[in-house]
């Protein structure tokens, strides 16, 4: 029989396997400790990121990152509409007033003003798709009149504008326009949709991330040159402040350095897991086990519980991420994995270092002390 002069890697693997399955590794205990310690750090980070994301979402939802350029009959509808294709712009559309009103059969004494908008305005108002033909109405009006998307509402003749022979209007969409501090411009009216090739009174632009100056410079390109001087750009909702920088909020979140705690915690667990087996390791070294291979064996055993722990933490991170819908906010899944991955590396480094620094002599000093 041909003999190698030392322990084969197959032997190393088999030793690791026997230690794991016989419980010498105490894999489940270390994995559970890893899960609790690193899981707490990772979840704290996800919660902090989630808070930033929630603030960001609210900021966007209340219209704080929607900017409105106003200049009567001096806004080019097509240019405004095309701003919707610019990177970072979530929606753009133009709006103008009319002298017409609509009288719903249900409320004959309260005529509703009609304004005209380009299709992109629906996107600015949070409608998922560019609306089909018909009128857009705010939620409050829809609720008080019992109007629903896609439904028809009886109106009193004469029906102004188009289709004079009909006694009904089609409701193409209902947009949310709550009283959350935004300007009341679109709170009580019906929006009739018109093509963009014309002049309008205002251009609405929804931008992410919010940047008032960039918004203003984009919006001003929609001005027809003549009456540009009296044009104003306003934030639709100024109650949340003008400045909101999601990426700097993310970078300055209180848990931004928690990966270091994860790393150190993992390192501590790894170190202790190997240190508590110091005599066993020393005894193996004394039996002729090469140090390098023993490090390999311990990394295999460590890898077993580190991987289980990391998978458990990752599952918790993914779950929390989904609760917050963080994927939408440019915070990649990998970002959320930073804490468990650092902790995993730390744990393996701890296992390696503790094994590497274990010496055969540890066995004899132990016996001396007995």
């Amino acid at each position, binding site marked *: *029989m041909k*003999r*190698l*002069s*030392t*322990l*084969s890697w*197959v*032997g190393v693997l*088999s*030793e690791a396997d*026997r*230690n794991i399955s*016989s*419980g*010498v590794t105490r894999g489940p205990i270390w994995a559970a400790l890893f899960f609790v310690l690193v899981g707490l750090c990772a979840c704290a980070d996800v919660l902090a990121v989630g808070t930033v994301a929630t603030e960001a979402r609210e900021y966007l939802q209340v219209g704080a990152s929607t900017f409105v350029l106003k200049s009567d009959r001096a806004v080019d509808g097509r240019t405004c509409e095309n701003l919707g294709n610019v990177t970072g712009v979530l929606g753009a559309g133009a709006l103008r007033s009319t002298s017409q009103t609509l009288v719903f059969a249900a409320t004959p004494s309260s005529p509703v003003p009609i304004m005209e908008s380009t299709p992109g305005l629906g996107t600015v108002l949070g409608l998922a798709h560019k609306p089909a033909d018909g009128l857009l109405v705010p939620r409050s009006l829809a609720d008080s009149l019992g109007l629903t998307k896609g439904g028809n509402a009886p109106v009193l003749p004469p029906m102004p504008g188009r289709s004079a022979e009909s006694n009904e209007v089609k409701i193409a969409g209902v947009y949310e326009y709550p009283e959350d501090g935004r300007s009341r411009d679109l709170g009580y009216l019906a929006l009739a949709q018109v093509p963009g090739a014309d002049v309008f009174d205002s251009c609405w632009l929804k931008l992410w991330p919010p940047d008032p100056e960039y918004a203003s410079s984009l919006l001003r390109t929609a001005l027809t040159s003549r009456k540009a001087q009296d044009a104003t750009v306003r934030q639709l909702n100024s109650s949340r402040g003008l400045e909101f920088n999601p990426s700097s909020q993310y970078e300055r979140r209180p848990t931004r350095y928690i990966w270091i705690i994860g790393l150190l915690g993992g390192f501590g667990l790894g170190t202790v897991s190997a240190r508590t087996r110091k*005599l*066993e390791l020393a*005894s*193996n070294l*004394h*039996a*002729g*086990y*090469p140090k390098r291979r023993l490090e390999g064996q311990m990394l295999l055993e460590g890898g077993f519980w580190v991987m289980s722990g990391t998978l458990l933490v990752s599952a918790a991170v993914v779950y929390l991420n989904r609760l917050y819908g963080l994927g939408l906010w440019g915070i990649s899944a990998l970002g959320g994995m930073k804490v468990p991955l650092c902790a995993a590396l730390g744990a393996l480094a701890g296992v390696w270092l503790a094994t590497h620094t274990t010496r055969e*002599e540890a*066995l*004899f000093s*132990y*016996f*001396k002390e*007995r």
Partner: protein
Amino acid sequence: MLMRGVGLGHWFPATAALFSRLSFELASGKVYGLIGPSGSGKSTLLSILAGWIEPKEGKVEKEGIAAIAWVAQHPFGVGKRSVLDHVSLPLMCRGADRASAEREASELLEQFGLAEAKDRNFSALSGGEGQRLMLARAVAKAPQLLLVDEPTAGLDRRTAASVNERMGQLSHRNMIVVVATHDEATMSACDELIDLNKECG
């Protein structure tokens, strides 16, 4: 292989001279008993032979000694691993695959009266079985020098006998065996005795 102690002497700051001008020659295939009462310096001399302690006087000459094995006063093992695993490991460390290591280990276990205990976990062994396992594991390492420090110290008379009975197994192997002891029965299993209380040479 050969080992020689030449004019060895040693003491610690807090002790008088433990031994001095001690000379001896150790040959392969023999079991040497290192005798003397408790505190006479037996463990210290074993450590000097192993090379872990520099003697204060004299020197140790070694020829052809590459590997040393040490069996301590108390058995040490991994509670959840089997007796067979404990003896197979040193054989695997010398290059055997597990199957042939287990075959060889089984033979050794039989020689040390542990054939029945082969598949038991270390934690299920009695003190005497533990010490016999330590001897088998040490022999499996195939060292040129085997140092055994009071293998029966922690055992009652009857279990000690089971260990002493196997000490003879250490003779006629290709290794030098030195056993520190103050147990009469252990001494009688040795080929030669080195008395620490006598000055030699």
